[in-house]
């Protein structure tokens, strides 16, 4: 067994190296004869067995018509080389957006597939190396968008594995495939680690003033509600009276700016610190607070909103630390 696997490996490895060197790279790749491999599928091998069986029957019964059917099946097989190849060739794969996620989740990559000519390409499978394939039902000149999910086990910048695009259409007898190195990346945030928000971690106000988690307590007035404002501040009574959505504003007498500090987690391993900070960023954003972040050599002024959160999370994701 080991000898066999060894031989297989020695045969396969040079081929794989060769194939890898040929792999096209880029954000947008068109499939052509340089990039498409084609080989009989398992179903195709079975089909050939059927044709051979018929040939055997024809030979033994000296029946030329049975021969003819066997030859017809063989011809179909040979023809489907062109058809299967044609189903893949001329497809252009373009990397569109990629979406961030937390480590341990799956990152979403958006690909745009278009086909040249007026032929519609059908039943094409897409998969990242080692991933589960996803079937694209039809690709035409207008193209279609495919969301592919890539496992993201670690934080940082994720470069996707090579993309396998394959098809056995129309008869399933041959499998045409190509490996593409799609140039795209996604930022993977650290996996959030739930921590208690202790004062030592969050209450280090920028100008030394004490802050409370709940923000100021002095009610100062109403303002027109804007999306993104914390729901807790909505003046529900006013809303119930039919006066529209208003938010209560509190006087910023108390500084409600929160600083998350790397140093507050001293003594913990880097990854754990990043994960904890990641959790806190999410929590604070959910609460609608203003929060800032201090990392070694990098500092973000307190602010709030989705943009701000992403900026902070990205900083956490790409923090060099001692990650390997």
């Amino acid at each position, binding site marked *: 067994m080991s000898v066999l696997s060894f031989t297989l490996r020695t045969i396969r490895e040079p081929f794989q190296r060769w194939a890898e060197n040929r792999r096209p790279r880029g954000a947008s790749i068109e499939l052509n004869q340089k990039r498409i491999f084609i080989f009989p599928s398992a179903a195709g091998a079975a089909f050939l067995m059927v044709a051979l069986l018929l040939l055997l029957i024809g*030979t033994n*019964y000296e029946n030329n018509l049975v021969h003819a*059917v066997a030859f017809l099946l*063989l011809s179909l097989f040979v023809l489907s080389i062109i058809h299967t190849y044609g189903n893949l060739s001329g497809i252009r794969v373009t990397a569109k957006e990629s979406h961030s996620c937390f480590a341990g989740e799956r990152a979403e990559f958006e690909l745009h597939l278009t086909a040249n*000519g*007026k*032929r*519609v390409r059908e039943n094409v499978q897409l998969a990242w190396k080692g991933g589960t394939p996803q079937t694209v039902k039809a690709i035409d000149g207008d193209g279609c968008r495919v969301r592919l999910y890539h496992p993201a086990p670690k934080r940082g910048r994720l470069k996707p594995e090579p993309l396998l695009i394959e098809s056995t259409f129309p*008869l*399933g007898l041959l499998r045409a495939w190509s490996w593409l190195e799609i140039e795209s990346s996604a930022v993977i945030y650290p996996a959030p680690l739930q921590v208690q928000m202790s004062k030592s971690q969050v209450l280090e106000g920028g100008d030394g003033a004490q802050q409370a988690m709940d923000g100021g307590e002095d009610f100062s007035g109403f303002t027109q509600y804007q999306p993104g404002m914390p729901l807790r501040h909505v003046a529900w009574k006013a809303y119930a009276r039919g006066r529209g959505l208003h938010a209560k504003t509190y006087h910023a007498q108390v500084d409600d700016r929160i600083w998350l500090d790397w140093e507050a987690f001293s003594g913990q391993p880097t990854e754990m610190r990043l994960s904890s900070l990641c959790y806190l960023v999410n929590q604070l954003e959910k609460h609608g607070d203003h929060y800032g972040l201090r990392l070694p050599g990098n500092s973000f002024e307190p602010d709030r909103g989705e943009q701000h959160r992403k900026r902070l999370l990205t900083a956490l994701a790409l923090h060099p630390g001692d990650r390997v």
Partner: protein
Amino acid sequence: MSAQYRLSRPALLWQFIAIAVVVVPHLSHLPIWLLLLILATVGWRLMVHMGRWSFPHWSIRTLISLAACGGVFLSYGGIGGVNGMVALLIAGFSLKSLEIHKRRDALLVVYVAYIVATSALLFDQSVWMAAYVLIAVQLTTAALLAIYQTHNVDIGRPFRTSAVMMMQALPLMLVLFIIIPRMGPIWNLKMEVGAARTGLSDTMSPGEITNLTRSSEVAFRVRFEGERPPQNALYWRAMTYPDFDGRSWYRDEARDRQRVPTESLEIQRPVLKYELMLEATGSRYIPTLDMPLATPIGVRLNPDMTLRLNYPLQKREEYSLESALQYRLTAQGEALNYVRELSLPIGNRRTRELARRWYTETGSGEAFIARLMAFYNGRFTYTLKPPKLGRDSIDKFMFETQRGFCGHFSSSMVFMLRSVGIPARVVAGYQGGEWNPYENYLVVRQYDAHAWVEAWLPQKGWVRIDPTAAVAPERIERPSEELFSEEEDFLRDAPLGGLTVGRNSLLADLWMQWDAISYGWQQWVVNYHSHQTDVLKRLLGEITPLRLALALLIPFSFVMCLVALKLFWRRWNLVRDRHDQALERLSQRLHNKSGLGRQPGETVKNYSDRVAEIRPDLALHMQEIAYCYELMRYAGDDTGSAARRMLVLVRQCQAKV
């Protein structure tokens, strides 16, 4: 992925179509219970499909499978025969249809369907069956296509796609069919296909028959190398009947092993070469002209110089034969060596006495025979409706009824000859045949069956004597269909037979053309393996592996290139913009009317200006067209209003041109 794959509705429907189509040719030999099983399983699956029932439990499926296997085993007495194997396959895939949920199940059904469809050709190799199997293979391919189609899934698309693919595959198949060398059978298989028994019988009892209706079925076809012999020389010997029990003439196989006089055959060249295509008879004779010289494989030569197959003929077969028409077949010594050909049962006293009296009067065998023939010629009538004869049939025929057909004449003549010590036997075979001028071959039908006499004369050896020729010479000189067509009972058993064999009838001519086609089919397709070497020599000059490979590769690559071109060539596949096409049509029309075609490289704006100058009536339209075109192309015409406006304008403008 494929584990969760669910078959689409059209794919499932195509599965059933394929199953139905491939089973139809086998209906004649499948037992009833198997048909019911197919209906039941397909019905069940349809009920599942409609959501009324659920899939049967695995234990039920196993039980049915085992029962089906046992049933096939009992119905066919084992699965050794082709019938049994096919029945088993059909039972298998109809049961499989009960559990098609995954792609693998569907593939299994389709692949088995290919085999079942093809196996129909083992039973019938006619043009019709071949055409049917071709369609069945196409529909099975449609079922295969339907499994993989994900886009625009409707019922018709697999059919259309498979038709296109078949068209592309047929030329390739033809090349393979012509070029790929055939091997002989790897192991010997005997077909046990119950072919209907037609043709000559092993016994001849003319006295029992009162109405000889004859069939127009084809017995065999012959293509001669060189000149065809004259009609009256076409005596096709199939069997001889040396033994007589008072009623029937036959061959007693047990007596074949007794001592036979050693005969020698002298022949005179030239010999006649011909290809004989014999229909399936279920018997073991091969009709040959006079003395066959070469014996094909699987055939042996009887002492009476007839050919005998080692196995009953179950399918149409073609033989290359050689015959000597001028010959002398005799044994050294005297007539008494031929014990078997001289023995007679007791009875028929009057005939014996007559024979002896005539023999003493004439003195020699030849003169005796001449007297006998004259007797037949003077007194006897040829008819297909002879009276029944009963006991002492020869006496009754010779002295009372004197009406009969070839069987009566040959039977009575052999009796007369044997009575005076001349060895004689009845020969059964065919006489004559009908010439097909379209393909230049001879069709011999069952109604050409004939019986005559062979007598042994000391100097000449075995000679052929045909008493029927003395009674009704036209029976030998003219083809039977011409001769008998006035007789109303002739061919009574064939409702259409009468129409297709008459002389001056359009139908007969059509039949002749059709027969020429099916003969060509038989010779060039069904029996291609026996002609392949000749064909390849004629095509390639000389058969070498290199030439074979080239003959295979060149047409193959040609067809593949055509298919590839159709798929990939840009001009056939390019999406043409509707607006550009509309402009092109307008320009073409302007060119035809006033020679104002758009020049290559001319912008729409320039073109419209040029047209406006010469045709002021179109100026307004042309300028707006150019404006809309520019808007559409360069101003980000999101709503498409400019594009629509342009199309309208072009149409209006075209109307004004």
